[in-house]
């Protein structure tokens, strides 16, 4: 299975979080939002200019800046 950064995933692609490569506030915030190791994430869509991106996880939609999404590593399904 391929490993990708969340910002590199395309619409409709799904994956499982393997690592959060951030520290401090961003790490805390991302984890507060439900992005934890093992969480399943699906890319719902990109904004017209590509940034931000919208995801589906744990039954809700979450939008992240690409810059922040780049810190999240996933195993693509």
């Amino acid at each position: 299975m391929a490993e990708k950064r969340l910002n590199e995933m395309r619409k409709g692609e799904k994956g499982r979080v393997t690592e959060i490569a951030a520290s401090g506030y961003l790490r805390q915030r991302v984890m507060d939002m439900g992005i934890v190791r093992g969480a399943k994430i699906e890319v719902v869509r990109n904004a017209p200019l590509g940034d931000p991106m919208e995801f589906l996880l744990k039954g809700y939609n979450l939008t992240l800046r690409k810059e922040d999404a780049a810190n999240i590593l996933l195993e693509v399904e």
Partner: protein
Amino acid sequence: MITVAIIGNPNVGKTELFNRLTGMKQHVGNWPGVTVEKKTGTFTYRGEEIRVVDLPGTYSLTAQAADELIARNYIVDEKPDVVVDIVDGTNLERNLYLTLLLLELEANVVIALNRWDMVKERGIVIEVDKLSELLGVPVVPTVAPTGEGAEVLKEVVMKAAKEKEVRRKIVMGYGEDVERPIGVVEDAVRKDASLSGRYPPRWLAIKVLERDGQVLKLVEESPHRAEIMAAVK
């Protein structure tokens, strides 16, 4: 007077339920020092007046965001008699994160399981009694727009306010690797009777390990700071 704080994630019907409970008896101001709106109101239940404080809607209770810190400080410092946690029943997994943080703060939690109409409409099955048993807190299904469950909620809140001390505590475990350091730091924190009297020791230990800015400041002021910080390593 009994004080009840209302908390929940953003967009769970928190303000709607607040309005349901308090009707027109509200006062809107600001939290001291910040431009975050503070709403308080009252309701009367069987002749007793109850004060209701609407806390900012948050997903978490870190020290890094102003609204989260307001909510957290209110709960740890003002110690409201009851904290009503409004949970969106259609999104339990997301919402229960805040609930667990509140339990860690040892707040006297009552859950309003809101959007109960939508839960049923979507065919979601929630075993209310089981949820209540697992979390060790009362759970009341509510529908904020119609007021369904609001009277039961008032009754349960009053009961919780009066039975504060008999509530059994549910401890959410994080697994051995994390529990060991929590235990070590908690033991060190308990040596400061004043600090561990003001805040739940386990919560302090977890926050110290998370390097929470506000709690680290509290520890710095402690005469036992060296022991506590040594326990972290």
